[in-house]
């Protein structure tokens, strides 16, 4: 379970995150939906311990992101905004490196890699050097790397950005699968259709604030709009950043 409590973060003049609170329970997909620059990435960075909030707190399974960094990172699989790989290493070596840093035992590490590569349908990619991989192939490696320690909680920052249709479908299947395994999944997106198609719970963020939250149905009811896109526009008050 991931919980944020009144997170604030200011960069110079700009208030990037201005009071963001939400709870993402286990076994649910929680979507952070908002236009570009709304504060989604900063919020996720505060959950992943790398950015210190000016106020408020973030916790993962009860571990505080600022005081118990290792406790949080052990329970969290993160696909950050930056998802670079080591081009001279093979896919397997990339994943193995992070597995070892996560203290996964060697035999378990190899087993888990086989399982993940299978799941992500990247059998023939596993032992090729990452240099020259396509966007989708890279994403698969980055995902495997983030999940290698079997984290209970998964945070994905715009996971379908730059992916083609097939890769996007595979990503969605994976996210549902993680949910069905009982994990807590938080993912951010600026694409309304994607959030609608996937999420059990939507947290709408605009200008650093949570402006609405609830199930897709609840959001429709709340705004009186049958169409979720209309509901979204009504909530954030502009059409900015709605492009699919």
């Amino acid at each position: 379970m991931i919980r944020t409590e009144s997170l604030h973060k200011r960069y110079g003049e700009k208030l990037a995150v201005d009071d963001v609170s939400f709870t993402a329970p286990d076994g649910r997909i929680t979507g952070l939906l908002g236009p570009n620059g709304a504060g989604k990435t900063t919020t996720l960075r505060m959950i992943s311990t790398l950015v210190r909030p000016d106020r408020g707190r973030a916790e993962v399974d009860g571990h505080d992101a600022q005081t118990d960094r290792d406790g949080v990172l052990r329970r969290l699989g993160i696909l950050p905004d930056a998802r670079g790989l080591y081009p001279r290493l093979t896919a397997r070596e990339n994943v193995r490196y992070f597995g070892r840093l996560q203290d996964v035992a060697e035999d378990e590490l190899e087993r888990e890699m086989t399982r993940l590569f299978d799941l992500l349908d990247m059998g023939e990619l596993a032992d090729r050097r990452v240099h020259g991989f396509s966007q989708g192939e890279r994403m698969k490696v980055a995902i495997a790397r983030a999940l290698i320690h079997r984290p209970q909680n998964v945070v994905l920052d715009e996971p379908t950005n730059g992916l083609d249709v097939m890769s996007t479908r595979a990503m969605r299947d994976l996210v549902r699968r993680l949910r069905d395994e009982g994990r807590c999944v938080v993912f951010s997106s600026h694409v309304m259709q994607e959030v609608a198609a996937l999420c059990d719970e939507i947290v709408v963020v605009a200008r650093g604030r949570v402006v609405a939250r609830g199930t897709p149905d609840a959001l429709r009811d709340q705004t009186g709009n049958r169409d979720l896109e209309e509901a979204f526009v009504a909530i954030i008050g502009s059409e900015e950043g709605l492009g699919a």
Partner: protein
Amino acid sequence: MKLRHAMVVLRKELVDALRDKRSLLSALVFPLVGPLLVVVMFRMIIEQQDVDEPVQLPVVGAEHAPGLVDFLERHEIEVMPPPDDPHEAVRTGAAKAVLVIPAEYPTRFREGRAAELELLVDRSRKESRSSVQRVERAVEGFSGQLGTMRLLARGVDPQLARPVALARVDLATPQQRAADILGMIPMFVAMAAFIGGLYVATDGTAGERERGSLEPLLVNPVDRRALAGGKWLATAALSAGSVVLTLVTSGIALRQTPLSELGIDVQFSAMDALQLAIVMLPMSLLAAGLQLVVATFARSFREAQTYLSLFMFLPMLPGMYMTTASLDPAPWMSFVPILGQQVLMTAIIRGEGLDPAALAIASTMAIAVGLMCVLWTARLFGRERIIYGN
């Protein structure tokens, strides 16, 4: 902090670096080029020794100036019969210079007017420069001698015509110049320490951020000191490899150079090389630490590379300082990293052996500074500005 994590990072960085052709090339090329330069310079000195042999000078119209010819012969300039085409001979390098004595020379000479001579030279030919200088000096000497005699004949003190007298005293013997060149080996070895790990240090810091793998790396539950430490050891390992390679190639190069022809008795033994390696290992740790922290601060991979290329010249500073300030090795120098190592290396090269106390101090200082840089790098890895580069 878990040492195991540092080892995981070290292993990954080494595998990564050894697959990187650029990093390997930079670690390999310099150790080959440096010692080669030393050999080339030695060869040049040995060739310059030939200077004391008589200069062969073709002279056109030698019959017009028997006095001059006699003077030249007495000053180790062998007067030769002129070639058919003097200009062509100089241009092609067949003759280093040709002296032309015009037919009116005797007349002008007798009348006490300046008798003009022509010396055909090709200034673009470096190898003829010293011969030309010797001929010029001889002719000037002849002219000066005659002038003095003419003044004396007229009852004038010749010193009136020479208000200033400059005497050049050249103290450099070929042996000393050779010793200077030998003294460059410690500098090459020190530079190798800063070159070997350059790409690893850059790739593991600024490069890691630029390719977007720093943020994912930092969301592992690992002490940042272990991350920085692993990268440090990987950088130092390549640096040390470069140092060892430079020592080996220097040893081979010196053995191939006929130093005895210069009358130098240099024993660059395997033992010396081993001692130099022991002196330099802490320096690799220092160089790696400095490079790591500087490259972490850099805003981009390129910027980091630029900074670190400048750092390559850091080991040249102590040597230059000691030369310009004409300092002799002193005990305090052991406490200054890099300088301490350089003093130790110079002593080994001169065959004075290795002072264990100075080695202990210099090594401790170098490792301490290196370690501080690593801790600093670890702190930087926790800063948002460094992680996200804005």
